[in-house]
């Protein structure tokens, strides 16, 4: 009799969960909430603005112009033979998707403490919703990139061409998002207790940009030291992106595989840490 009853329980709350009890099924159950959060982020962003979603384009345009002046005109860094505007715009678009995803997800616990303190839902919904919102933003920014790209291809005689790597485009987008998500959840889990990391992250991400071929091509680094820059998993992603759409630079299978594997390792480690922290973070935040 007793044992028959035990099987009826469909919810169990325990002090600690196993390392691989990730409850992804529950995350799926809450998918509606994920999209409502995405919608909230959007609506809240452009409510009471005149330009609305066009604001998403202002940041890459201004950054590109700035890079054009500083790195193109003043420092005169090479751009692998493609028009500098396209080179920078590609870099800026990819980089800002990654860095926005990372910074926003890293604030998951601290920014949502008031909701988390009152009601339960799988906490992973929040970082996931941030990745999805940013993906929509990326979509808008990519439209800009593709229009500029189309202009150059149709109206100028530059040597821009698509390569086979275009097929990797969806993989690249997913890798950028997941890398941002993975690192973001690691930071968010640790910042609940050690706030110092927040400061580290805010300037660390700026420094990281210079360790990534955003404003310069990987080919600028000598063969001997190239691997150091490639240690950064984002390097291969951004290089492959440029290779795919601009025909610039080269595709390095080793770097790409390394980047692919490390993205997933970081993501899995991140989710495990996050899962461990989410249960009791309210006590330390």
């Amino acid at each position: 009799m007793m044992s028959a009853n035990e099987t009826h329980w469909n919810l169990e709350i325990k002090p600690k969960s196993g390392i691989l009890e990730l409850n992804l099924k529950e995350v799926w159950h809450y998918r509606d909430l994920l999209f409502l959060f995405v919608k909230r982020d959007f609506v809240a962003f452009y409510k009471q603005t005149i330009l609305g979603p066009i604001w998403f384009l202002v940041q890459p345009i201004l950054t590109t112009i700035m890079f054009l002046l500083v790195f193109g005109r003043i420092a005169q860094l090479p751009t692998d033979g493609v028009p500098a505007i396209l080179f920078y715009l590609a870099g800026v678009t990819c980089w800002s998707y990654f860095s926005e995803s990372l910074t926003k997800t890293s604030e998951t616990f601290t920014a949502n403490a008031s909701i988390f303190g009152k009601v339960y839902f799988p906490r992973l919904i929040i970082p996931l919703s941030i990745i999805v919102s940013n993906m929509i933003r990326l979509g808008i920014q990519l439209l800009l990139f593709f229009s500029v790209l189309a202009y150059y291809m149709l109206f100028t005689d530059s040597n821009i061409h698509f390569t086979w790597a275009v097929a990797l485009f969806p993989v690249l987008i997913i890798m950028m998002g997941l890398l941002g998500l993975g690192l973001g959840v690691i930071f968010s889990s640790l910042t609940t207790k050690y706030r110092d990391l927040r400061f580290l992250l805010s300037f660390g991400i700026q420094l990281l940009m210079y360790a990534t071929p955003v404003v310069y091509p990987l080919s600028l680094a000598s063969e001997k030291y190239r691997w150091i820059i490639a240690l950064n998993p984002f390097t291969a992603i951004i290089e492959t992106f440029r290779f795919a759409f601009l025909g610039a630079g080269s595709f390095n299978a080793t770097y790409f595989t390394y980047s692919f594997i490390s993205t997933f390792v970081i993501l899995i480690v991140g989710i495990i840490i996050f899962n461990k922290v989410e249960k009791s973070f309210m006590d330390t935040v």
Partner: protein
Amino acid sequence: MSDIAIKLENISKLYRLGEIGTGTLSHDLNRWWHRVKGKDDPYAKLGEENNRESKGGDWVWAIKDVSFEVKQGEVLGIIGKNGAGKSTLLKILSRVTAPTTGTIKAKGRIASLLEVGTGFHPELTGRENIFLNGAILGMTKAEIRKKFDEIVAFSGVERYIDTPVKRYSSGMYVRLAFAVAAHLESEILIVDEVLAVGDADFQKKCMGKMGEISNKEGRTVLFVSHNISALRSLCNRGMLLNNGKVVLVDDTDVAVSEYLRFDDTLTSMELEHRTDRLGNQLFKFRGVEFYNKDGEQVSETISCDYLRVRIYATCDSSIDCSKIIFGFNLLNQYDEVVLAYNSDEMGAFNFSNDKGYFEIVIPNLYLRANTYSIKLLAFYKSTRAEDTLDIIEKATRITVLNGDLWEVGNINRNGAYSIFPGQFIF
């Protein structure tokens, strides 16, 4: 077939007191090192029972070894004074934080209402917020859509449903928020004191809805409130918590009266140790007790009944006890004085240390049903601030229950003011 909806086994929660932050890295490393060596957590040992007044280690058990079961369709009221562990228990039940030890098993979805309007975004319209808030509370989009009209009708803000909620009055805001919460479809509902929202009309509506949820729909509800009358009318069982432990689980009335008794004894016993007082304490109040006309000690009385107040005190030999000016004030929940006895108006104050106490006899306590607090004052020779002997705010409380002053079979209304004998002449 067992009909237990939720079952708690030895639930405990350890909290760290004081500053969390600096120095935690070394503690964490130390704890990790102990774990590597297979030893116990070096800091958890310091845990002791949760009592705000006593000093102790850095760690306390906010709740300790709480075990109970709630049957399907039962409405359990959880009572206890501030800091008894009610909120911690609710947080664990609603999975906001994990217990330190123990397990909870439940059948069906648990929805928790620790606050109304969690996740409301000011820029979003009422409509958008209903969906967002509903989803945060665990409903799917389809479920919300099905209940949408009902929610809007209940909240009574139809006209503003497409206006951002930042334009709402605070009343409209909470009405909408409560409306969403009231239409949750979970099998188990956990409710913290959220009923005190909106105007009187809406509160009545909320109470009605709560009653409907628990009685008609047969859902399991765990309800925490200080509102004794709400607890009495909604719950069929009550659980009393004190210092993180379950004192008893019984019928609501038993639990409530135990709580009132328990709570008041504690306060009066602690009076002489209280430090939140003014004056030089050459004359010092030590305790307050209440007696009914049969001479029994009570913590509540009935409106217009006889009440005897006994006040324990000590008078230092360096002062002349007969020169003391004593004041006794009864205050309502708004801290307004509704009754005052002052010894300088009423004659000599002949306190004697041998007896150790003096009494005030109130033949008829002409006050409406409510909880009143008591303020005690003692001055020496004059009532100037520098002559203060002892002043203590909220020395204790007395609960006045509804009576029938007019003797026509109607229960007098509650209120925070007096009810005097009188009559209509036609």
